[in-house]
């Protein structure tokens, strides 16, 4: 079966959603949607046995074969893990949304269309083997995320958040496309598998580092890494199912997927190791630090997501070290990254859902108004407790296992000797430990400020009560998973994690069975990470108890010195600043534009003329100077100066006539009788035309032109004049081929049967010119007639019934 088509199943299903929504009013549309991710989840689950043995499945659909672009669904351990996350959590989120969104008040048709669109896009991202189609799906996730964040489009903050996430993720997406194109040039293929196969040749290629940085920009913007994380907290304006699905479990992990997928290509570079590990760790630290500051439940979760994504990112970076060092201890990093990725998806999904329930049942998400909900919402409390403790990294929850692995890897990084890690390496465990302490603090802050303490009567918009059963099913399932994974980590490892790790580190393992990592909750008293965890708990508990005393410190940061302010500044600059710049040079005055054009032409032409040594004057080819010509030239000059200097219109018109007639005289001198004839007639008619319009034309005023503008005009005019003269002189001096005049001369009698060469050229050799010249004349005539006759002024047109 061509399972690549399954990627498009959600999109196809989305086509029917509006119909179902319109026709089946009584049934919540979500029930129909639920079937799609469930079917896909069950189908993808059947791939587990083959990937466990290191196998992979591939299915291809040609799209643009001539350019090597196709839809390829390539399922190995890594993409299968992500596909299962997307469809599994997708099912739970759809189920949750059925109870969260009211079928009568909300536009469910739109919601589920966007959600299914997103699901297709996400499956496409993780399964694509072709970088171009991967980019296509990548941007589709950005677009569907934009639509989902702006779901309540009547709210200002929704639209702001949607635009912000769009700007940042699409910026990253475009950079990533650049990286893909460079990779395509280096490897001469768009297939990721083939690129990985030829990856060792890329090291040292001119484009290698550039492609690496561009690709990482895409991954960092999507996965909300520092400093691009700012869109994620604002994306919390989306409905909670969307936040749970896109902004904790799936879309923000697309960047992690990208990093993991391209690790076999780029891990040879120290830039990769440093950037991925460093930025990841910085994001972890930054996100955990600022999560404590937030007062909105979803904002706390958004910052905690940022921080946890940073954790996984830094582990992926540390895992790339295995490409340089065979030290067994680094093997834990990649394993821990994938493990934490699964764990984070489970506990963060459930936390978001509970935050949504609290919002739904109390009417607020403000942590300052909440408190004492433990006895009212016992089930929600239990789940949120499990999720938070897992997030804080405490046993017996799955977060504990992956957090221990994380600390272990960060301690191990100190021993890595390449790339100056031995100098700076000490920073890694220290920052990681501090970040873990803050993670502990915000996890406790989140759960206990909401559910413990006293109830604040009268502050809540609604009387709180426990959520309906349907809404609790999904978080309960996730909560059970959180605890379950703690007790059976090695099953999860065998089924999901090891195949994924084997796909990321093909250099270490030829098949998943080779990975000799056994997850254990207990490492003995000698292990460093145990004492680090104990330290986290002790210091974290102390900090949490004294939270109210030091939380004020966050107020010290001035609002102007934040990344959000930087983003806002950039946006307002691109809007107002650019407008101001274009207003500065787009004056609306014809003269200004003429000056731009003339100045540019003369400068450009003169520069080229002299830099290319093209200026040559060859006097030999020139004809002798005739007396009549000189006299006529003087007359012409006088006439044209008169046009320039005349103060009255009549004088100017007559002088212009003189110019025309002396040009006609030149035609006579230079043996062009037909030209002279035409020129005389046309000049007469022109002057007549001017005189006809004379009565209606305004007086020749100069409209207050200052000396300064006259000077500028003069300089520009002289520049153009000089340019024309020099170009004409050097063009005339350097003729490459002789004129074809001889041909006309020879054939005019025999071929065309005429004696007047000029006329024969006009009507026989080059008759088309004449045809369209006639057309020009006719159009001008019609135009003149129209302008004189048609008078659809505002006054006449105001009442068409007259």
């Amino acid at each position, binding site marked *: 079966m061509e399972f690549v088509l399954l990627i498009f199943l959600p999109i196809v299903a989305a086509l029917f959603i509006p119909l179902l929504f319109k026709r089946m009013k009584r049934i919540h549309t979500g029930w129909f949607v639920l079937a799609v991710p469930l079917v896909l989840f069950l189908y993808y689950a059947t791939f587990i046995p083959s990937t466990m043995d290191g196998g992979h499945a591939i299915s291809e659909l040609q799209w643009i074969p001539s350019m090597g672009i196709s839809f390829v669904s390539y399922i190995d351990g890594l993409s299968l893990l992500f596909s299962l996350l997307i469809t599994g959590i997708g099912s739970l989120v759809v189920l949750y949304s059925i109870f969260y969104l009211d079928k009568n008040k909300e536009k469910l048709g739109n919601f589920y269309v966007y959600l299914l669109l997103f699901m297709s896009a996400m499956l496409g991202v993780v399964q694509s083997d072709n970088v171009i189609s991967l980019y296509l799906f990548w941007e589709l996730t950005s677009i569907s995320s934009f639509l989902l964040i702006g779901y309540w489009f009547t709210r200002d903050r929704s639209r702001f958040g949607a635009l912000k996430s769009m700007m940042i993720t699409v910026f990253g997406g475009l950079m990533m496309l650049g990286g893909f194109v460079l990779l395509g040039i280096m490897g001469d293929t768009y297939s990721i598998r083939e690129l990985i196969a030829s990856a060792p040749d890329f090291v040292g290629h001119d484009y290698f580092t550039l492609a690496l940085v561009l690709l990482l920009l895409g991954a960092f913007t999507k996965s909300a890494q520092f400093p691009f994380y700012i869109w994620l907290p604002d994306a919390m304006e989306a409905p909670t199912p969307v936040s749970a699905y896109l902004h904790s479990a799936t879309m923000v992990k697309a960047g992690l997927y990208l990093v993991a997928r391209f690790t076999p290509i780029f891990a040879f570079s120290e830039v990769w190791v440093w950037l991925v590990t460093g930025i990841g760790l910085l994001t972890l630290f930054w996100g955990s630090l600022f999560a404590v500051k937030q007062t909105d439940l979803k904002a706390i979760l958004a910052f905690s997501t940022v921080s946890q994504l940073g954790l996984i990112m830094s582990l992926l970076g540390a895992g790339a070290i295995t490409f340089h060092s065979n030290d067994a201890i680094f093997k834990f990093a990649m394993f821990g990254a994938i493990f934490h990725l699964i764990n984070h998806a489970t506990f963060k999904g459930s936390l978001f859902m509970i935050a949504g329930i609290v919002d739904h049942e109390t009417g607020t998400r403000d942590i300052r108004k909440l408190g004492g909900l433990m006895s009212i919402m016992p089930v929600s409390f239990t789940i949120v407790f499990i999720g938070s403790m897992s997030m804080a990294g405490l046993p017996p929850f799955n977060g504990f296992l992956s957090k221990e692995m994380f600390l272990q890897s960060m301690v191990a990084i100190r021993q890595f000797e390449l790339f100056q890690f031995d100098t700076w390496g000490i920073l890694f465990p220290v920052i990681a430990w501090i970040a873990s302490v803050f993670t502990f603090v915000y996890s406790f802050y989140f759960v206990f400020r909401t559910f413990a303490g006293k109830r604040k009567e009268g502050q809540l918009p609604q009387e709180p009560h426990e959520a309906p059963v349907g809404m609790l099913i999904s978080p309960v399932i996730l909560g059970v998973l959180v605890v379950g994974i703690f007790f059976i980590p090695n099953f999860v490892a065998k089924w999901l994690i090891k195949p994924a790790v084997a796909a990321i580190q093909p250099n270490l393992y030829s098949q998943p069975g080779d990975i000799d990592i056994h997850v254990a909750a207990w490492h003995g008293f000698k292990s460093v990470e145990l004492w680090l965890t104990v330290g986290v708990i002790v210091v974290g508990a102390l900090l949490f108890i004294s939270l109210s005393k030091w939380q004020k410190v966050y107020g010290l940061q001035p609002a102007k010195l934040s990344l959000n302010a930087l983003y806002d500044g950039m946006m307002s600059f691109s809007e107002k600043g650019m407008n101001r710049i274009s207003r500065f040079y787009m004056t609306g005055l014809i003269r200004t534009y003429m000056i731009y054009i003339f100045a540019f032409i003369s400068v450009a032409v003169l520069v080229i003329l002299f830099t290319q040594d093209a200026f040559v004057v060859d006097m030999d080819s020139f004809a002798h100077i005739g007396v009549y010509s000189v006299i006529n030239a003087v007359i012409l000059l006088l006439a044209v100066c008169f046009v320039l200097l005349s103060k009255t219109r009549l004088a100017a018109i007559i002088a212009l006539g003189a110019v025309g007639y002396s040009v006609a005289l030149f035609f006579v001198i230079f043996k062009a009788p037909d030209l002279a004839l035409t020129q005389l007639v046309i000049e007469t008619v*022109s002057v007549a035309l001017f005189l006809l319009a004379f009565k209606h034309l305004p007086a020749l005023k100069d409209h207050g032109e200052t000396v300064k503008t006259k000077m500028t005009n003069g300089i520009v005019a002289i520049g153009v004049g000089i340019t024309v003269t020099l170009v004409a002189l050097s063009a005339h001096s350097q003729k490459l081929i002789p004129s074809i*005049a001889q041909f006309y001369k020879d054939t005019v009698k025999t071929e065309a049967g005429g004696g007047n060469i000029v006329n024969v050229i006009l009507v026989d050799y080059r008759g088309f010119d004449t045809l369209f010249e006639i057309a020009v004349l006719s159009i*001008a005539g019609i135009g*003149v007639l129209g302008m004189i006759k048609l008078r659809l002024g505002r006054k006449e047109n105001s009442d068409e019934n007259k």
Partner: protein
Amino acid sequence: METLITLLVGVLVTIAVYLLLSKNMIRVILGTAILSHAIHLLILTMGGLKKGGVPLIEGEAGSYTDALPQALILTAIVISFAVTAFLLVLAYRTYKETGSDNLDALRGVNDE
């Protein structure tokens, strides 16, 4: 000879451009007229001003001036005449409708 005419063309172009840059509508039209004269002369000059007969063949063959530039100029004269006539009427109508021949004042409305 060509040098002289080319210099003359340069002067004509300079004056034409100067007129084109002025604020007065009529001066701009005068500028376009002069510019087309200049260019016609330039085409003729570039074709070569060597001595030769008028390009009319009557009987025996001889030396003639190049006919092709002349044909090109003939076309250009008619077209520039059409454009000048059109511009002139346009100026006339603009002046009638708006009461101004100041190009700086004829900026239209500021958009937005």
